[in-house]
């Protein structure tokens, strides 16, 4: 099996964020070794206290929490992106491993395929 890293870089309010999670969950359901890296505005998906109903949306929380249950092994968040946005890993609603630029470059080398979504 080729491993797959999904780089999710859209804010949770963008439909693209939901569709990136769908790809990760679909891949994991087919037993593809799969990781997900939240980067750029994608880190906003991990903010606690989002009340999506206020803006007429369905919460992403269930899809996010399904990631480890479905076997998405690596849940990662970009340190640089968090910092730029004034966020800390302790504020995240998933246990995501914080990775720096060098670690991201290594991750991208390590996985067989990368999808930026």
């Amino acid at each position: 099996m080729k491993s797959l890293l999904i780089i999710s870089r859209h804010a949770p309010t963008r439909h693209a964020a939901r569709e990136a999670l769908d790809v990760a969950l679909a891949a994991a359901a087919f037993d593809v070794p799969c990781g997900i890296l939240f980067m750029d505005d994608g880190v906003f998906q991990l903010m606690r206290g989002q009340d999506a109903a206020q803006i007429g949306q369905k919460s992403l929380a269930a899809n996010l929490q399904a990631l480890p249950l479905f076997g998405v092994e690596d849940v990662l968040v970009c340190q640089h992106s968090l910092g730029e946005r004034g966020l800390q890993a302790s504020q995240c609603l998933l246990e995501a491993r914080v990775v720096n630029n060098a670690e991201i470059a290594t991750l991208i080398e390590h996985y067989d395929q990368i999808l930026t979504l």
Partner: protein
Amino acid sequence: MAGLLCFHWVGFMKFAIALLAGPQDPAARSALEFARAVLSSGHQISHLFFYREAVHLASLLGVQPQDEQDITAEWRQFITEHRLDAVVCIAAALRRGVLDKAEAQRWERPAANTAAPWELSGLGQWVDALQSADRAVTFGT
């Protein structure tokens, strides 16, 4: 020596090509030009996958001004001519109102706006494509 030659000889490859952006985005043309070049280079396209706004490429209803190119018609012709598998993500298509006859009936919608050569199917098709292709290239991120 044979080993060294083998290393440089990449051989013919199976490409999976995904498009994420809609017909109004320059990526719709980049992906088509790339797909043409894959075939003209002697490689094979094992899968085409259309996700997100790219599902609108499968609509048969678009009308372009006469002096502009019709990228959806070009894609349709390319897919038909080369008998390629062109899979449109069914979940993304339903949300965006791109339905074939079967889906229009199932969801009791007044009309269908897509048909062969486009095929509505699940994300599993893309996951499968990523596994079986030698190279996977995404356009329209």
